[in-house]
């Protein structure tokens, strides 16, 4: 699969993807499809929670997606595609047995070592649950490595809730303190209604040493950070996971550049204190 120039420059064509086979695929909401994949050549796919891949279909293109499974699962990995455009529609048309192209893992994920031994709070809004799920599942799989684990999840409506099997487990789990909310309830919704920050009233003991991850719609960040400030959590202990339309994934194409940082190389996970003054970040 290499051409003569690659041998001459001793470098790999950074745009050359590898093939992943779809083990299973199912629509989990009206617009989101959940894929479980493994590399077609049987190679191990190792990554850090929070890293991304460029997933693609030839003829349509590639899109950046956060890995939605934990690296503790060795024989497969998971992605969630929300159907919004040409490439995501082409990916969502694929089913079990089909292949998609993968480049990655790319970028920097959550600094797991900084979280170890600490209490952890994850605040996920909407599809922000997908990339953070890599860390949620990691914590649950290595539960003894972490302190108290709190998860806040907010969705627009009950129908928009992703990973409902996980949510069912988490609601009655003794390994974590899980709270959820919706902006607009339906007739059957018995839980909290309101924006995600209303969940801060539901739990009392978030200590100032807690390490925090925030991932959700841009509007969510400033309100969540205000709550964290009130709890006395330093912004250097808060990590955010940013989305951009990364074309190359290797810091060259310029599309994901915010001020002097590229989301694909310096992120997608950033320490909040490092980007809070970057006007273009959130």
């Amino acid at each position, binding site marked *: 699969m290499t051409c003569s120039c690659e041998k001459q*420059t001793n470098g790999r064509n950074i745009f050359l993807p590898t093939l992943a086979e779809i083990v299973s695929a199912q629509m989990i909401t009206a617009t989101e499809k959940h894929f479980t994949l493994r590399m077609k050549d049987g190679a191990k796919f190792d990554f850090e929670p929070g890293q991304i891949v460029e997933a693609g279909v*030839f003829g349509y293109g*590639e899109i950046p997606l956060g890995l939605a499974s934990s690296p503790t699962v060795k024989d497969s990995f998971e992605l969630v595609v929300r159907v919004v455009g040409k490439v995501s529609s082409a990916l969502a048309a694929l089913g079990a047995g089909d292949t998609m192209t993968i480049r990655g893992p790319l970028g920097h994920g959550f600094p797991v070592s900084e979280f170890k031994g600490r209490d952890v709070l994850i605040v996920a809004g909407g599809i922000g649950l997908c990339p953070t799920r890599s860390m949620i599942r990691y914590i649950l799989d290595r539960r003894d490595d972490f302190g108290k684990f709190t998860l806040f999840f907010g969705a627009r409506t009950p129908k928009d809730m992703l990973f409902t099997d996980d949510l069912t487990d988490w609601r009655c789990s003794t390994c974590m303190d899980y709270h959820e909310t919706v902006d607009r309830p339906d007739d059957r919704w018995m839980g909290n209604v309101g924006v995600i920050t209303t969940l801060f009233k539901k739990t009392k003991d978030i200590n100032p040493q807690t390490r925090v991850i925030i991932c959700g719609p841009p509007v969510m960040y400033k309100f969540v950070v205000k709550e964290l400030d009130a709890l006395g959590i330093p912004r250097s202990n808060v990590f955010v996971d940013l989305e951009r339309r990364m*074309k190359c994934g290797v810091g*060259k194409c310029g599309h994901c550049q915010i001020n*002097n940082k590229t989301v694909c*190389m310096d992120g997608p996970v950033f320490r909040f204190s490092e980007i809070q003054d970057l006007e273009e970040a959130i």
Partner: protein
Amino acid sequence: MTTRFLSDGALKQFVQALMAKGPVIGPVARKSRFVFAALEAPEDLRLDYDTTILPPKKLFFPTKQDLVKFDSPSSFSGCVEPKEQVLLGVHPHDIKGIDMSDKFYAANIPDSNYLAHRAKTTIIGSNVQKHYKHAFFGSVCRELKPQGHDMFLTRLKGGYLVEVRSKKGEELLALGKFEPASREQAAEAEAVNAAAEKNCPEKLNDTSDSVREKVRASFGSDIWNELSRDCFSCGSCNIVCPTCFCFDVQDEWNLDGVSGVRSRCWDACLVSEFSEVSVQGGSENFREERAERYRHRFMRKAVYLNDALGGPACVGCGRCSGACTADIANPTVAINTIMER
């Protein structure tokens, strides 16, 4: 460093010898302007050009470059096939632009597609014989010298002083009737190049270091609104810039609807769609205002790339000043205004 003299007649024969070995790309006239194009005859070469419409980056970073060819969803291969080429007649500031581009593409995760084209290219620079009306290279980081070239020609009476700048350049000496150069000729060439820097029609009033710090500090200033008020967001300044490297990646099918190619093409951060992102099912633009996009380009040239690559990314060619429809891109006007505030 080897120094030689090449007479006008010998230059023609040298160019002919280069052309016999492979494509030679140099400045040629197109109506009232010049472009870098493959020479069809040695006489096409116009070393007296002022500037070219597009910078020479197109030789290693083509406007459209195939990256991966596919026959089916699961059958594909990398497809960069660079060919040996000679790039002849590059002005010193454009060589600096290539240096910046080389560093950028080699940094972190190297872009082998760019580097493969670059490695196959021999670069022969030449002095500025006629200034482009917007050129200001003489006031941009003069201490930073052009590096990535193999030979440099300076116009003297009756011919050129030839300075060999690499091993590859040394090997070129076998292709022409190069005569020994006198110390006086070498001194004259040095004076010619110094004069070209001194006589630029436009200039920045401050050093690159002070420009970097002041531009960085002006991030939140209203001046960007003021400077960009007439911007059409057309991206012309990006396209003609030697150090604008951004690109888009797109797939195209062949007529069979199955096979095709994934390629990259030049993109422009001044265009509003550049910074759009799908977020939570909607679309966000993190540089929605034209002032933000205009500022981003200046920040990238004066600050971000400068920090990352050790020198200002603007080389002072002046092409953006000439290409701008609204006449607002001129860096000397913008930077000098920022520095005066």
